[in-house]
């Protein structure tokens, strides 16, 4: 079903890494559709494969299997050379503003690099003009034109990263933890900037983070990942108001809320830690930490995503039971 409004579609995306201990399931059968101008938040703890998913979408990492369809075009098997042209349409913002900028280049060089590379502008006057206007767009004072990353603070560096991504007029930006290295007050500045850019130029974001409060604020849809798989996906409001998967519930309950006094909700903690993603058995991956396990969870195969209500998908054996209870 071709849908002109869908910018990115990912079908059954899989990435395995071979390790000495066995097959590491970094991304294991992830599927989603993302509409133009919308934001999909991907949340999960470290090692759940959210960053690998983001990088595989951009083909910075080659997928093991699955399909990536961008703007109706299947880019899964495009060569590195072919992808290079595509880089103008899909970009990335990195987590660490300290290591994602070459320390030996000035701000001018850094921002103009993608402009030069893709020949967006050709004369040096045009390049300078575009660099300056990008700096204005991301709120970076023009006086830093000749400064170097080590002379700037984290927030300003992250603005450089955003300007570099914007330089080629992309449609899609994958943001990999863009604010987690920043202080709260700076974090708010950057989040506001990203949101304003979306409003102004209609950008589409894949927003990867471990911080649920940020994702709630920022995303239209949220997908929760656990050990390489999506366990729940829903609209942001729905997911936070009505989480179904036990892991989502546990994650939500674990956020330390800045509330003191009687309004503070009681927390429910889960025990145990994330198991190793190497050589996973075919059963629910959350089994060992889940406190709502059914008998069949230990033996039955890995649950797949099922739509429990419009646009709300959950992968859990519990929902079968709930359905039966309703009947």
């Amino acid at each position, binding site marked *: 079903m071709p849908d002109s409004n869908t910018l990115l579609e990912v079908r059954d995306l899989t990435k395995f890494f071979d390790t000495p201990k066995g097959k590491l399931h970094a991304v294991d059968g992830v599927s989603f559709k993302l509409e133009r101008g919308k934001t999909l938040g991907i949340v999960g*703890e*470290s090692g759940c494969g959210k960053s690998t998913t983001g990088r595989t979408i951009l083909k910075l990492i080659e997928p093991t299997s699955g399909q990536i369809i961008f703007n109706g075009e299947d880019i899964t098997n495009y060569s590195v050379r072919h992808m290079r042209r595509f880089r103008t349409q899909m970009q990335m913002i990195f987590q660490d503003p300290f290591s994602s900028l070459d320390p030996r280049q000035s701000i001018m060089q850094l921002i103009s690099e993608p402009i030069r590379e893709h020949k967006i502008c050709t004369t040096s006057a045009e390049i300078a003009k575009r660099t300056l206007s990008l700096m204005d767009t991301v709120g970076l004072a023009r006086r830093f034109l000749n400064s170097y990353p080590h002379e700037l*603070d*984290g*927030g300003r560096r992250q603005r450089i990263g955003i300007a570099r991504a914007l330089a080629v007029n992309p449609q899609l930006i994958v943001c990999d933890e863009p604010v987690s290295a920043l*202080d*709260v*007050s*700076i*974090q*708010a*500045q950057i*989040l*506001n900037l990203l*949101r304003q850019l979306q409003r102004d130029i209609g950008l589409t974001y894949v927003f990867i983070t*471990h911080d*649920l*409060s*940020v994702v*709630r*604020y*920022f995303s239209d849809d949220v997908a929760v990942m656990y050990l390489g798989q999506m366990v729940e996906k829903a609209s*942001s*409001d729905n997911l936070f108001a009505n989480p179904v998967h036990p892991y989502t519930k*546990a*994650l939500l*309950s*674990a*956020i*330390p*809320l*800045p*509330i*003191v*006094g009687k309004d*503070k909700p009681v*927390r429910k*903690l*889960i*025990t145990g*830690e*994330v198991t190793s993603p190497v050589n996973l058995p075919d059963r629910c991956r959350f089994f060992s930490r889940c406190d709502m396990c059914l008998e069949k969870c230990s033996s039955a195969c890995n649950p797949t995503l099922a739509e429990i209500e419009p646009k709300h998908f959950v992968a859990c054996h519990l929902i079968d039971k709930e359905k039966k209870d309703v009947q």
Partner: protein
Amino acid sequence: MEKVLEVKDLVVRYETDDGIVHAINGLSFSIDKERTLGLVGETGAGKTTAALSILNLVPDPPGVIAGGSIILDGKDVLSMGEKELERMRGNDVAMIFQDPMTALNPVIPVGQQIAESLEIHEGLSREEAMEKAKQMLEQVGISASRAYDYPHQLSGGMKQRVVIAIALACQPSLLIADEPTTALDVTIQAQVLSLMKGLIDNSHMSMLLITHDLGVVAEVCDDVAVMYAGRIVEIGSADDIFNHTLHPYTEGLFDSLPNLKARGEDLIPIKGLMPDPMHLPQGCSFHPRCPYATEACKTREPELKKAEGSHYVACIRYNESSFCLRRDKDAR
């Protein structure tokens, strides 16, 4: 109430080649027995320097403790000799650092690392110490059979539990935790925080928790001190700070947090950046970023003044009868 720690007018500078970094400029606070104080602030506020000063561990050079006093259990830390300091660290005060990966020695089994500090500080024999170490591991939720594991065999959360066990082994009267859960995932962070809280309550210790995360503070702390540019701008009970905010900076921190906001609404960040600690602004160091600043704020340095009970605030506009923060206006 009995005070475990009292810091008064502490001034710490780093004298570097490029100039003098004013890290701490007249810091005063105290921690009562069996209370937990959360020290909140952003990068560069001087939180970690404050913690290092309490242990008299500020790297010298370039660090210079230029004034003030730090009274721990009735003794002045800053006038102690090296021998006394060594006895104090670990026995009376223990510290937990942010990164559990580097806090443990990679070539010594974790049980032995706990036992070692028991041998040194408590004078236990090797066997007794190992026995106690295993008990400690059980207490922090790690099975005693893992006492012979090396740090790399444990996950990040478990390593931080081991670090906590080491810190608590000698039952210090004060525990300093510098961003103890920042490197951990949320579900693990929640586990570690509740573990720490339980242990502190059971052993009647006091804690100084340093963090940038107001959520963590709300979870664990009885009292809260908000730090900005090397000074306390507001201090009080958790209820005072969270529900009766008085300082514009504290308000700015709360407004920057996305989790309290409904979707779609813009965040209200604090404008501008943390001041360069080499060139702090005149008067109130927050005035260039403060939406309420007046002419007087540019020249007069505000003192920490009592507002109500245990609630203190350093803002010259607080005394104006008509002055009221945006939060309170909204509430009305």
